[in-house]
C-alpha cells in the first residue's frame, strides 16, 4: 500500500473519529447487554456504532478521503482511480470481485455525501445487516460482550468435561478461543444468552470443586455475575451459615493486615534503597534507554567486583592478616606517592601476592572465618596436620571466583540473548512496547511524567530506526560509501597497530631504564615515580585514540546511530585489546626474565621495595594502570564534557550541548574491568580499588551528564545494547584475563623469595601436592584423586565435554529452525483466513445489495443524479 497518501487521510481521521466518539459513547450502553436486548432498532443503532474498518486498507483510505473532502469531487475520483489501479495490479482472482464491489460503492458514495450525516457515511457503505453480522463476529465480541465471554467459557468447560471423560490431552483454552466458540455463538443468536448461561451452569456443576473455583476465578466477568453463577451452581448444595466473623479472628485479620502493611512499606523502603534506583530512573527519563544501559552496566560491574572482593577478603586477606608472616621486614614509611604508584608502603601488605606466606596455620584461630575453622576441625578428626593451607587457599579462591564469575557471565549473556532475540519476532517490538510499557504501579506524579517522557523517547528511537530502514541508495553512492569505509578502517587499524608497537617498545625501554636505575642505586621514590610513565602513556593513548576514531567516523557519516555505535565499539575494542595484549606479553615475558637477574642483584644488596618479587611488581603495575585509567576518565569528563560545553556555549555561541558517548564510556569500563581481573591473582585486593573507582565514576558521570550533556539527537534503540556489552565483557575481556591468569598458574615459575607458591615450580603444583597428600592420608578420597588424574590432567575429558556441548548447540539450532518454519506456515494460514474473511464479508454485502428493496435503490439513484448536477 502507498505510504505517501497516508498522512493526508489519517490527519483527518483523528478529527473525524473524535466527533464519532461522542456518538459511540451514547450508544455504548447497549454493548454490555448487546445480546440481551433483542429489539431490532437498537441492534441496528449499535451496529452503526461499531467502528468497522473495511478489510482492505486501500478501500478504507479511499472512503476516508471521500468523507473528508466532500466538497471536492476531483479528489474523490482521483483517489478512486488510484484505488482501482492498485487493485488491478493484484493478481489474486478474488480481488476482482472486491474491486467491482468497491467501484460500485464509489458510485454510490456521492449520494451519501449529499446526505446531512457526513460523519456516518463511511459506515453506510455497508448495510445495517452486514454491520450487524460484523459486530457479532466472535473475534470482536469476545473482548467486551458478556454473552460472548459466557459462551467462551461455556465452551471451555465443555472441553474440560470432555477431557475428563475421554482423558484426552489438550489445552483447556485454545489460543484463539473465539474460533472455537463460533458454533456456540450461532446458538446464542437463536437461543439467547439465558440458554447459554444455563449450559454453563450445567457444565460448571459437573466440574469438580477446585476446577469450578478456578474457572470462576479466571472468568473476566464482573463479581456480581460470578456471584450469581456461583449461587446458581451451589443452590443445590449446602445451606450457608450467615455468621459474622468471630471477634478473635477479626483481631487476627487486623494483626495480619497490620503486619502486611508494615511489610509492604518495608518492601517499598527496600525498593527505594535499591542501589541508585532514583538516579537511574532520572537518567532513563531524560536520556533514554541507551544512556541508561551504560549506568546499568556500571552497576553490574560493581556487583562483580563486590563479589570478588568479598571472596578474596574472606578467604585470603583476613586469614593472612590474622597470621602475619613471622619474618616481616621493616615497612617503608608512608609518603603519599604510594597512592599513585601502589608501591612503597603498600608493598608488604595483604594487597599484594608477595606478602602471602606458604605456611599452614591452625584453622581455629580467633580471627579466622567460620569455614576455615570448620575445614580445620573436620580434617582434625582424620588428620591433625590438616589445617588452613595458604597456597591451597590462594589457588582455590582465585580459581573458584573466576569460575563463578564465568558462570554468572555466561548465564546473564544467555538470559539477555533470550530476551532480545526471539525467534518469532521478525519485525521488531513496537507493538509490544506500546501495549506493555506502561507501569501501572507508578503512582507518583513526577514519575508518571518521567515514564511518559521515557516512553516517548523510546517510541521516537524505534521510529527513527524504521524510517532509516526504508531509505535506499544508488550504486554509485554505495561505491563511494564503501571506499570511504575502507579508508576509515585502514586508518583506524593502522593507528591501532602503531599504538601497540609504540607501547611495546616503550615498555621494554622503561624496563631497561628501571634495571639501570636499580644498578645505579637510585632512591626508591625516584624509581617509583619513573614507573608511572608507562601507565600515563597508555592512558593517553586510550584517551586520544577514540578522538581520532570519532573523527574518522564523522568522515564516514553513518545514518544509523546504532551502526555508528557498533563500529566505534569495534575499533576501540581492537585498540584496547591489542594494547593490553602487548602489555600482558611484556609482563609475563620480559618482566619475569628481567626480574630473575634483578632479584639476584637485589638479593645481594638488600630489599628494594618489592622488586625481588615479580608478582608483586606486576600487581603494582596493574594498580598503577587502574588508577591512571581512573584519573584520565575524570580528566576526560571534566575537560571533554564540562570545559567543552562551556567553550562551545560561551565562545562558539552554540546552543547544542555535547552528546554522551556511550560506546567509548562502556569500553573504558570494560578496559578497567579487564585490568582488575588480570590483577586479581597478583593483588587480591585490587577489586576494592576498582569498586571505589566505579562508585566515584558513577557520580561524576551522572553529574556531568545532567549538567553538560543533552539527550542523543539521533535516538537509537538500546534493546540489544546490554546484550552486546555483556558479551564484550565476557568474550575478549573476561576470557582474555582468564587465559592470562591460567597461563600464569599453569606454566610460569613463581618467585622463589616470596608468595605462597615460593618453593614450587608452578602454582598448579600446589594442587597436585595436595591431591597426593590426600591420597596418602585417607583412602576415602581415592575417588577424588581419580577425578583429578583422569579429568583434570587428561585432555581427553576436555575434548569430550566440548564435543558434547557442540552437539547440544547444533541440535538446538536445528530445533529453532524447525520452529521458524512452522511459524511461517502458520502465519501463511492466518493470512489466508484473513483473505477468506474479507471475501465472505464482501460476498455478504453483495447478497444484501441484491435483496434490497427497489425503492431504496431508486431513491439513491435519484440522489446520485442530483449530486452530479
Amino acid at each position, binding site marked *: 500500500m502507498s505510504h505517501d497518501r497516508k498522512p493526508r487521510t489519517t490527519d483527518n481521521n483523528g478529527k473525524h473519529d473524535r466527533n464519532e466518539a461522542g456518538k459511540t459513547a451514547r450508544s455504548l450502553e447497549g454493548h454490555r447487554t448487546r445480546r440481551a436486548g433483542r429489539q431490532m432498532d437498537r441492534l441496528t443503532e449499535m451496529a452503526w456504532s461499531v467502528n468497522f474498518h473495511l478489510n482492505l486498507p486501500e478501500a478504507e483510505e479511499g472512503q476516508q478521503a471521500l468523507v473528508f473532502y466532500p466538497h471536492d469531487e476531483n479528489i474523490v475520483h482521483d483517489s478512486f482511480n488510484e484505488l482501482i489501479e492498485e487493485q488491478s495490479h493484484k493478481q489474486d482472482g478474488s480481488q476482482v470481485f472486491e474491486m467491482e464491489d468497491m467501484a460500485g460503492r464509489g458510485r454510490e458514495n456521492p449520494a451519501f455525501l449529499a446526505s446531512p450525516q457526513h460523519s456516518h457515511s463511511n459506515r453506510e457503505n455497508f448495510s445495517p445487516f452486514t454491520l450487524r453480522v460484523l459486530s457479532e463476529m466472535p473475534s470482536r465480541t469476545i473482548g467486551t460482550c458478556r454473552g460472548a465471554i459466557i459462551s467462551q467459557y461455556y465452551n471451555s468447560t465443555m472441553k474440560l468435561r470432555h477431557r475428563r471423560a475421554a482423558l484426552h490431552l489438550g489445552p483447556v483454552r485454545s489460543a484463539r478461543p473465539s474460533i472455537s466458540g463460533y458454533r456456540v455463538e450461532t446458538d446464542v443468536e437463536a437461543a439467547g444468552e439465558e440458554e447459554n448461561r444455563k449450559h454453563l451452569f450445567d457444565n460448571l456443576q459437573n466440574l469438580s470443586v477446585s476446577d469450578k473455583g478456578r474457572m470462576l476465578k479466571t472468568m473476566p466477568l464482573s463479581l456480581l455475575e460470578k456471584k450469581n453463577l456461583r449461587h446458581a451452581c451451589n443452590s443445590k448444595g449446602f445451606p450457608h451459615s450467615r455468621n459474622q466473623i468471630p471477634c478473635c479472628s477479626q483481631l487476627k485479620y487486623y494483626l495480619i*493486615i497490620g503486619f502486611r502493611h508494615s511489610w509492604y512499606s518495608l518492601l517499598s523502603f527496600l525498593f527505594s534503597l535499591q542501589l541508585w534506583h532514583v538516579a537511574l530512573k532520572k537518567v532513563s527519563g531524560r536520556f533514554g534507554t541507551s544512556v541508561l544501559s551504560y549506568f546499568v552496566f556500571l552497576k553490574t560491574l560493581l556487583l562483580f567486583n563486590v563479589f570478588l572482593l568479598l571472596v578474596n577478603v574472606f578467604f585470603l586477606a583476613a586469614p593472612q592478616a590474622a597470621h602475619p608472616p613471622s619474618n616481616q621486614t621493616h615497612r617503608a614509611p608512608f609518603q603519599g606517592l604510594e597512592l599513585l604508584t601502589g608501591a612503597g608502603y603498600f608493598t608488604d601488605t595483604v594487597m599484594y601476592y608477595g606478602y602471602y606466606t606458604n605456611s599452614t596455620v591452625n584453622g581455629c584461630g580467633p580471627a579466622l572465618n567460620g569455614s576455615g575453622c570448620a575445614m580445620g576441625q573436620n580434617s582434625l578428626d582424620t588428620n591433625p596436620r590438616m589445617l588452613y593451607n595458604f597456597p591451597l587457599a590462594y589457588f582455590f579462591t582465585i580459581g573458584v571466583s573466576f569460575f563463578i564469575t564465568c558462570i554468572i557471565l555466561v548465564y546473564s549473556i544467555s538470559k539477555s540473548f533470550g530476551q532480545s532475540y526471539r525467534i518469532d519476532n521478525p519485525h521488531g517490538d513496537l507493538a509490544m512496547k506500546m501495549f506493555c510499557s506502561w507501569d501501572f504501579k507508578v503512582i507518583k506524579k513526577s514519575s508518571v511524567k518521567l515514564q511518559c*517522557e521515557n516512553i516517548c523517547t523510546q517510541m521516537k528511537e524505534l521510529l527513527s530506526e524504521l524510517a532509516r530502514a526504508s531509505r535506499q541508495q544508488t550504486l554509485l553512492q554505495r561505491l563511494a560509501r564503501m571506499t570511504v569505509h575502507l579508508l576509515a578502517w585502514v586508518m583506524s587499524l593502522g593507528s591501532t597497530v602503531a599504538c601497540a608497537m609504540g607501547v611495546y617498545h616503550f615498555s621494554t625501554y622503561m624496563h631497561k631504564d628501571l634495571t639501570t636505575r636499580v644498578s645505579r642505586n637510585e632512591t626508591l621514590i625516584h624509581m617509583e615515580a619513573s614507573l608511572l610513565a608507562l601507565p600515563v602513556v597508555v592512558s593517553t593513548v586510550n584517551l586520544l585514540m577514540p578522538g581520532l576514531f570519532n573523527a574518522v567516523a564523522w568522515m564516514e557519516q553513518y545514518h544509523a546511530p546504532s551502526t555508528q555505535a557498533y563500529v566505534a565499539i569495534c575499533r576501540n575494542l581492537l585498540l584496547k585489546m591489542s594494547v593490553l595484549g602487548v602489555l600482558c606479553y611484556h609482563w609475563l615475558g620480559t618482566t619475569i626474565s628481567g626480574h630473575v637477574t634483578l632479584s639476584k642483584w637485589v638479593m645481594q644488596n638488600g630489599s628494594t621495595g618489592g622488586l625481588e618479587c615479580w608478582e608483586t611488581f606486576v600487581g603494582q603495575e596493574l594498580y598503577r594502570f587502574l588508577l591512571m585509567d581512573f584519573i584520565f576518565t575524570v580528566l576526560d569528563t571534566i575537560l571533554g564534557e564540562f570545559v567543552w560545553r562551556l567553550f562551545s556555549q560561551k565562545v562558539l555561541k552554540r546552543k547544542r550541548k555535547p552528546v554522551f558517548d556511550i560506546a567509548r564510556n562502556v569500553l573504558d569500563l570494560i578496559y578497567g574491568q579487564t585490568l582488575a581481573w588480570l590483577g586479581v591473582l597478583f593483588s587480591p585486593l585490587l577489586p576494592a580499588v576498582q569498586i571505589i573507582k566505579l562508585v566515584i565514576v558513577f557520580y561524576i558521570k551522572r553529574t556531568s551528564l545532567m549538567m553538560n550533556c543533552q539527550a542523543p539527537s539521533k535516538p537509537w534503540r538500546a534493546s540489544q545494547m546490554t546484550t552486546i556489552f555483556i558479551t564484550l565483557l565476557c568474550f575478549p575481556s573476561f576470557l582474555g584475563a582468564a587465559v592470562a591468569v591460567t597461563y600464569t598458574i599453569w606454566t610460569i615459575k613463581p618467585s622463589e623469595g616470596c608468595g605462597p607458591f615460593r618453593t614450587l615450580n608452578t602454582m598448579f603444583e600446589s594442587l597436585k601436592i595436595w591431591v597426593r597428600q590426600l591420597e596418602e592420608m585417607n583412602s576415602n578420597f581415592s575417588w577424588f584423586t581419580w577425578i583429578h588424574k583422569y579429568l583434570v590432567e587428561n585432555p581427553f575429558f576436555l575434548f569430550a565435554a566440548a564435543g558434547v556441548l557442540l552437539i547440544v548447540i547444533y541440535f538446538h539450532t536445528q530445533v529453532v529452525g524447525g520452529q521458524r518454519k512452522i511459524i511461517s506456515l502458520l502465519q501463511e494460514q492466518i493470512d489466508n483466513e484473513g483473505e477468506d474473511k474479507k471475501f465472505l464479508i464482501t460476498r455478504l454485502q453483495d447478497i444484501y445489495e441484491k435483496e434490497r428493496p427497489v425503492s431504496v435503490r431508486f431513491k439513491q439513484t435519484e440522489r446520485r443524479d442530483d449530486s452530479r448536477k
Partner: protein
Amino acid sequence: MGASASQISKELLSEYQELTFLTKQEILLAHRRFSELLSKNQDSLTTRVPQEKVLTLPELKSNPFRQRICHVFSTSEEKDDSLSFEDFLDLLSAFSDSATPEIKSHYAFRIFDFDDDGTLDRTDLEHLVNCLTGDTSETRLTPEEMTQLIHNILEESDIDKDGTVNLSEFQHVISRSPDFVSSFKIVL
C-alpha cells in the same frame, strides 16, 4: 474503622476470596480503603462511589488510564462509571499479583479499547499513544510520527490483516513480553 470492617460477613469474605485473586487480608484492606471513600453512615457494600471520588485514590490519581479503568470495571446501570465495592474488588483482583496473564491481558485490552467496540482500531491506538506519551507538547508525537507508528503497530500485531487488533492478536503480542504481568499491577 472497626465498625465498617465488620460489615463483611465471614461467608461473604470467603466467597470474595473464592471468586477473586485476592487474599482475605487484601479484601479487608480494600474494604477499609473503600469505606474511607464513603461518608459515615453509608453502607459500604451497596453504595456506589462516583468516579470522581474513586479517582482521588492515590493509586489511580496520576494514572493516564484512570477513567478507562473506572469505566471498564464499573457495572453501574446509569453508566456513570461509579464503582461498587464488588467492582472495586474486581479491579484490584485483575491488577493483583496472582491474577493470570489471560485475565490481565483481557482487562488491559478493554482498558485500551477506548470506544468499547471490541477491537483496537486506529483511533484507539492513537488515544493509547497519547495517553502513554502524556499531554505536554514536547512529548507528543508529531502527526507524521503518529501515522508511522500506528501503521507499524498494525503491521506487527494485526495478524489477520483486518485493520484492527482484536483480543487474541493483542494477547499474542502481550505473550512476548515477560514484563507485562509485573507491570500491570496496582498495589493498594
